[in-house]
C-alpha cells in the first residue's frame, strides 16, 4: 500500500513566494489565477489566453498596476469538470498565492468555482460561462461575470427580429442547460417581439452527437416560418450542411445564437448560410474605437492569426482586472469585491462596467447577418449591442438572486 504525493513542481513558485517580502514589494508581481479548459476547449481557450498575455504585457509595459508592480496571470487547465476545477482553484489559492481567481468555460465548472469562491470568501471573475444562474439564482457576493449571458444574447436577437412577419417558429438547441435556457428565454420573449407568434416544433439533440438528418427532417415537417438555432461547434456544421442540402433554410428567417463568432463561423467555410441573424464578432469589420483596431493589429502581428471572440474577451478581462487593482490598491478580498461592484473600465470596445446589483458586466456583442465572402463566412451589417441595454430588469434580479 503506497500513497504517493509526488514532489511538487512548484520549486520555482516557492522561490517566488520567498521573494514576496516587503523589502522587495516594489518588484513583486501581483498574481492572478486563471483557470480554463485549455485542453478540451482549445479552439476557444488558446486565442483567449493569447490575448490575455498580450494585454498583460501591454499593462506591464505601461508601468504595471498598483503603483508600478507587474501583474502576472497564472494559467491552469481546469480539467473541464467541476471536481478538477475546484481542486485547481484550491491549488492556485494555496500554492500559487494568487490574489483572486478568473476564467472557466463550461457553465457547471463556472458555477462550482463560484460557490467555492463564496465558501472561501475569495473573488472570482467568471469570464466565459454563459449560464444565467451564475449571476441570478446562484449568484453570490464574491462572483462576477464578464460576458453577456444566455438571456442577454437571446434578448439581442429578439430585438433584431422585432416586427418581422414570421409567425410559426421552430427551435433547435443542444440538450443541456445552455440550450434549454436559451430556448426557454426565446419562447418567453418571442410573443412580445412578434405578437401572435407560436412555437411549432422543438428539437433537443444531445450535445456533440446531433443526428442531423433526423433533426432537419423533423424541423422541416413542422413547416415553420422561422427557426431559432442554438447549436454550435461540430453540431452546427452538421446541421447547416444537412439543412442546406435539404433546403431547410430557404425562404425562412433563421436566428442563431453565437453563430457569428469566428470560432463557429470559420468551420462553416463555403457552406455559410446567407442572412442568418446572429450574435458574433467579425474582427475584419471593426473600425472603432481605435483601441480595438490597434488590438486587432497587435494580435495579428504577434500570433499571425486573426483574433477570435475569445481573444476579445481575454483582452477586456485583463483591462478590467488592471483597472480593479489600481482602484482597489490592495489585494484584500473584501476591498476588491467592493471596488469591482460598479467598476467602470474603459476597454477596447468602449466602457464596460460591472453592475453592482447582479455582478454582471455590461460587455456586449455584435448582432448582424451571416454572409459568404470569398468562400469564407463572415458577418454583414454588424452593430455592437451594448450589454447595458439587455440586462435582466432590477425586479427580476431581486426576485431571483439570493439576498447577500
Amino acid at each position: 500500500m503506497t500513497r504517493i504525493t509526488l514532489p511538487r513542481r512548484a520549486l520555482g513558485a516557492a522561490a517566488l513566494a520567498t521573494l514576496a517580502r516587503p523589502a522587495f514589494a516594489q518588484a513583486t508581481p501581483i498574481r492572478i489565477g486563471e483557470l480554463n479548459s485549455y485542453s478540451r476547449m482549445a479552439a476557444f481557450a488558446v486565442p483567449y489566453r493569447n490575448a490575455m498575455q498580450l494585454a498583460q504585457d501591454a499593462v506591464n509595459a505601461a508601468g504595471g498596476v498598483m503603483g508600478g508592480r507587474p501583474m502576472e496571470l497564472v494559467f491552469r487547465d481546469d480539467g473541464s469538470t467541476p471536481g478538477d476545477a475546484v481542486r485547481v482553484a484550491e491549488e492556485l489559492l494555496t500554492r500559487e498565492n494568487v490574489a483572486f481567481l478568473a476564467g472557466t468555460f463550461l457553465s457547471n465548472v463556472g458555477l462550482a468555482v463560484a460557490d467555492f469562491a463564496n465558501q472561501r470568501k475569495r473573488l472570482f471573475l467568471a469570464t466565459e460561462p454563459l449560464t444565467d444562474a451564475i449571476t441570478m439564482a446562484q449568484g453570490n457576493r464574491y462572483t462576477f461575470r464578464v460576458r453577456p449571458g444566455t438571456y442577454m444574447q437571446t434578448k439581442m436577437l429578439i430585438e433584431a427580429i422585432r416586427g418581422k412577419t414570421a409567425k410559426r417558429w421552430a427551435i433547435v438547441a443542444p440538450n443541456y442547460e445552455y440550450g434549454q435556457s436559451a430556448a426557454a428565454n426565446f419562447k418567453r420573449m418571442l410573443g412580445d417581439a412578434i405578437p401572435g407568434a407560436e412555437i411549432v416544433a422543438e428539437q433537443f439533440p444531445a450535445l456533440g452527437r446531433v443526428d442531423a438528418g433526423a433533426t432537419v427532417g423533423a424541423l422541416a415537417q413542422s413547416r415553420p416560418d422561422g427557426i431559432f438555432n442554438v447549436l454550435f461547434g461540430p453540431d452546427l456544421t452538421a446541421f447547416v450542411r444537412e439543412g442546406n442540402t435539404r433546403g431547410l433554410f430557404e425562404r425562412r428567417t433563421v436566428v442563431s445564437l453565437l453563430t457569428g463568432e469566428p470560432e463557429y463561423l470559420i468551420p462553416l467555410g463555403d457552406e455559410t448560410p446567407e442572412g442568418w441573424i446572429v450574435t458574433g464578432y467579425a474582427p475584419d469589420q471593426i473600425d472603432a474605437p481605435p483601441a480595438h483596431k490597434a488590438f486587432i493589429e497587435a494580435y495579428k502581428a504577434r500570433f499571425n492569426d486573426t483574433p477570435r471572440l475569445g481573444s476579445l474577451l481575454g483582452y477586456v478581462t485583463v483591462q478590467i482586472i488592471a483597472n480593479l487593482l489600481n482602484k482597489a490598491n490592495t489585494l484584500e478580498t473584501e476591498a476588491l469585491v467592493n471596488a469591482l461592484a460598479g467598476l467602470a473600465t474603459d476597454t477596447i470596445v468602449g466602457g464596460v462596467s460591472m453592475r453592482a446589483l447582479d455582478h454582471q458586466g455590461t460587455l456586449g456583442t455584435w448582432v448582424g447577418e451571416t454572409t459568404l465572402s470569398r468562400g469564407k463566412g463572415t458577418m454583414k451589417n454588424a452593430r455592437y449591442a451594448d450589454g447595458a441595454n439587455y440586462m435582466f430588469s432590477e425586479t427580476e434580479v431581486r426576485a431571483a438572486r439570493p439576498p447577500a
Partner: protein
Amino acid sequence: MEWSFLLVQALSGLASASSLFVIASGLTIVFGVTRIVNFAHGSFYMLGAYLAVTIVPWLLEFDRSPTLFFVGVLASALVVGLLGVAMEMLLLRRIYRVPELFQLLATFGVVLIVQDLVQLAWGPMDIPGPRAPGLRHGVTILDQRFPAYELFLIVVGPAVLALLWLLMHRTRFGVLIRAATQDREMVGALGVNQAMLFTGTLFLGAALAGLGGALQIPRISANAHMDLSVITEAFVVTVIGGMGSVPGAFIAALLIGLLQAFGVLIFPKITLVLVFLLMAAVLVVKPWGLLGRPEAAAGRAVLPEGILDPGRMDWAGKVLAVVALAVMLALPLIDAYAVKVGTEVLIFALAAVSLNFLVGNGGIVSFGHAAYFGLGAYGAGLLVVKAGLPMEPALIAAPIAGGLAAALFGFFVVRLSGIYLAMLTMAFAQIAYAVVFQWVEVTGGDNGLVGVWPSHWAASREVYHYLTAVLTLAAIVFLRRVIHAPFGATLRAARDSAQRADAIGIDVRMHRWLGFTLAGAAAGLAGGLYAFSKGSIDPTLLGIPMSVDFLSMILLGGIQSVLGPVAGAAAFHSLKDFFLPLTDHWRLLLGLSIIAMVLVFPRGLAGAFASLRRRPA
C-alpha cells in the same frame, strides 16, 4: 403525417444506421478475435476523419472527380488500418498474457494520447471536409428533398456487410477470424499463428473505423470530440448485436438508426438515453445480445483474473501500510493543498477498493461504477441543498442511496456475465446519468447543485481530511474483512465456477447481488464524501469518464490484490494532479504514463510489489 415525410425520415435513419454499422463492425470483429474492449476504436474513427479532410482536398486539387474523392477516403482508411497494426505490434502484443481487462487500460491510454496528438497535428479548430463531387445535391423523393450522399451511405452499409461476409466465408483469414471468435484457445492449439491473426484483425478493425470516419467528412467537420461521441454508441451496437457478430451489429445499427429518427419526433429530448434504454432492454431479455452466443470457453476451467488468495499481510506489507497511513495523517504538515489532494486520494481509494471488491473478488466487471459514487453524492447533496439537513445525516444517506441504486440495477446485472454484464452496468449508469441530467427541477440538470459544504466543525480542510480518513479507512478495512470472510470466499467460488458453486448449494445470484449492493453502498459513501469536499454535485460524477477513471485505478493498482487499488488510486490521482497544471497536453502525458505503467507493471503496482518480494534476495 404524410407518407412522404415518414419515408424520408426512415431514409435518414437508414443513413445513420449505415454509418454506425461501418464503425461498429470493426469493433465487433476486434472484440470477437482478441477479446479486447478497444476504447481506441473511437480514436481510429477520429483519425480517419482527420486524415480524410487532409488527403481528400489535396487529391481534389488534381481533379474534382468522384473517383479521387473515394480514393482519398479509402487511402485514409488504409492509413488508419496501419496505425491499428502499429498499436497491435508496439503495445497490445506485449500484454496479451496479462489479465484481459488490462488491455482495456492500455487502449484508454491510447485514447488520451491520440486526443492530444490530433490537436498538435491539426490544431484545435474544427476542420470541414469537402463535399463529395457528384453527390452534393439533394434528390427529390416524392415532395421531399433528400441528400444524394446519404442515399449513397445507405448503400455503403450493406455493401460492407456483403464484403465482410465474403471475407469471412471465402478466405482463409476470414475462416480463422470466425474460428477465433468461437474458440480462441482451440485455434491456438491447432497451430495457427496468433500474432499474425491478431495483427490482421487489428488492421481490419482499425481500417473499418477509419473508413467510417472518412465517410463522414461531407456531413460533419473533423473535430477533437468525435472519438468519445462515437465510441459509446459503437459499443452499444456491438453489444445489442452480440459481441463478435457482424450481422448482429448490422441489425442493431438499423434498430438504433430508425428508433433515433422516429424517436426525436415524439420525445425530442430522448437522444441522450435512447440507445442505452434499448441496450438495457435487449440485455435483460437476451443476455448475449440478438445474435451473440455464450462463449465456448464459458464452462471451461480458466485461470481466474482476480484475487486468488487474499492471504495475510506479510511484514513488508504491514510496514508499507503503516508508512502510507503515517504519510496520510502527516499531510497537514506539508501544506493546505497537499491535504486537499490527500482527501481526494482517500475518497478515490475507497471507490476503487469497492470496485475491486466486485471485479477482483467477484469477477463482476462493472463499467458503470461511477453511478453509485454519483448517486451517493446526489443522495447526500440533495438532502443538504433541498431538505436543509446538515452534513452528518447526509453522510449516512450517501451509502444508502448508493446501495439502493446498486440493489435495483444489480438485480438485473448479476443475471449476466462477462462483457455483457459490463455493458449492462454501463447502460444503467448512463440511464442514471440521463435522469440526473434531465430532471432539472430536482437535480439542477447539468449545472448541478452547489452549496454542499460540510458542517461548521468540519469546515477546515484539515478536520475534513481526518474525518474522511476515518470513514474511508474504516470502510476499506471492512471491505477487506468481508473479502477474507466466508462471504468473500463464496463470491470467489462463484467467480471461478458458477456451476460448481451452484452444485455445492450456493445461491450464486443472491450472493453476487448482495456483493453488488455492498460495493454500491461503499461507492456511495465515497461519493458523499467527495460532494462535501467539492461543495457541489453535477452529472459528471456519474459519467463514463469517471467510471473509466475508477477502472484505471484498480488496474494500475492490480486487481489480484485486496489493497492494490489503494495504491492505484493514489498513483492515478497524483499523476493527473501532477500533469494537469504542467501543460495543455496533460492528457498526452497521462496517457503515456498509463501505457508505461501497463508495460512495466503488467500486473499492477501490487503485482510488481509481490513479485519483488518473492524474488530471492
